[in-house]
């Protein structure tokens, strides 16, 4: 079978990639997708640890993370679409109305 280490390394790489995506991309949607990758990395670690401990608490946490992710998506995409309606652009480094 597969040792826990493998899952954790996979999760660490996925988390790093998500963080990189947030830091280097300019499009708000892609940044948000990268955040989802980070959340999935954390969930993966939770489920792997839960398997190791043979306990459900880790899986339950994942359940709540998914619920919250769904709520976040609703609010976040509403914001992104609302901004696009006004200025037809969702690049975060072009948000010039707030500079200084």
């Amino acid at each position, binding site marked *: 079978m597969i040792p826990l280490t493998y899952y954790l390394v996979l999760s660490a790489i996925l988390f790093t990639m998500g963080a990189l995506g947030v830091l280097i991309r300019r499009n708000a949607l892609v940044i948000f997708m990268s955040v989802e990758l980070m959340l999935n990395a*954390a969930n993966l670690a939770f489920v792997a640890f839960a398997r190791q401990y043979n306990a459900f608490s880790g899986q339950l946490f994942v359940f709540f993370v998914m619920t919250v992710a769904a709520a*976040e998506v609703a609010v976040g995409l509403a914001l992104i679409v*609302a901004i696009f309606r006004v200025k037809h652009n969702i690049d*975060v480094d072009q*948000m010039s109305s707030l500079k200084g």
Partner: protein
Amino acid sequence: MTPSDLLSILPLLVLVVWACALLLVDLWLKRKGVTAFLAALGLALTAGLALAQAGEETTAFGGMVALDGFASFLNVLFPLSGLLGIAVAYGYLKRMNIERGEYYSLLLFSTAGMMLMAHAADLVVVFLALEFLSLPLYVLAAFARPRLDSEEAGLKYFLLGAFASAFVIYGIALIYGATGTTSLSGIVAAIEAGSLGTSGLLLTIGAALFLVGFGFKVAAVPFHMWTPDVYHGAPTPVTAFMAVGAKAAGFAALLRVFVTAFPALDADLTPVVWVLAALTMFVGNVVAIAQTNIKRMLAYSSIAHAGYILMAFVAFGNPATRADAVASALFYLVTYALTSYGAWAAVIALEKQDPSAGSGQAASGLEINDFAGLGRRRPALAAAMTVFMLSLTGMPPTLGLVGKFYLFRTVIEAGQVWLAVIGVLTSLISAYYYLRVVVVMYMREGAPETTREPWLDFTWAVSALATVILSFLPMALFAWASAAGVMGF
């Protein structure tokens, strides 16, 4: 579920039910003033119930939430800050043409999230409370839609908030991996059992990621980049609520988690927090000097104050000053909440919609130079603003001095003299930009247009009076904060 479980979180339950009911009732209310009144009534009721809980100590729902002095102290503070959030918003929303009932329901939901945070005794609840208080705030920051600066503030706050949450969750995952549990008491037990071995490192890194995530939430340097933009773009009453409530809730989570679960990690984390606190005080105060916009200046000021509160965590590393560290942080939070609300109320009084720009445009009256002549035009308001600026600097005769004195003394008693020196020096730097506002108000000619609204005037007047009067009688507040210890598990 026993009745005592429900009773222990009664104020929170009342607030949540009230918020849901308000959503429905608002549909039939033509006059949004009634909605505002009902929301304020709910918050006042909640604060009263929380006050009645003082002195109780228990856990409920199988250890998910705790009721102790810490929770009941903050559970009075949060509804009161919500009340002020309504008082400053009532006239503003009307004036800016964004009067909608959702403002009040969302504000109530966010306050409920903050209260849940104060209760949290399990990392699941910490996480859910964090999201519960943040999600309505993202929407509130964008509340002045379709005004672009407000929408962009909402989006920036949202993206940074989601990013920070991801760090918090990954941190919790590592903590769970090290200890096998998410309950704070379970984590304490695992640490004390000493069976962690090298998993202790996993726990430390988990705690560090947790700290990074909440560093974003409380706007500590170097995780502060979003703050000036978001505080600037959001409607000013929301900014005030965010600056006070969200920051206090972030610190509530950090205090709760550090106090109960991580005392064993102090040796590893104290130097990190030391650097964070020093950097935050320094950067916040120095960059604030360069600001010409009052909202941005107050945003950097709020960053700087996050640094002062972080000092308490360094003092926490020394077992001798542990109790004082929590009490001084809570005391400072109250000081900051009162003063900062007053200052934001004064900003709101000067803010106006540009008549030439149409309804979709940003507001004006927010430059520091717009305060010129306020001393002559509105003597009372100018005097109140002077009090707030003195209090934010930490000068007599204001509560800010007492708060800083208590904090610095605790830090020095903990043996961190250099950090206290940095605190004092940065306070001196801050005097420059705070007093500049006072100079502009009294020394420069100008004819600022101000708004007179009963509730707004009430807010700054009460805040100013309380800031001065409490500075002469700080003992009651002091005793209350000292009693608000976090219960051990």
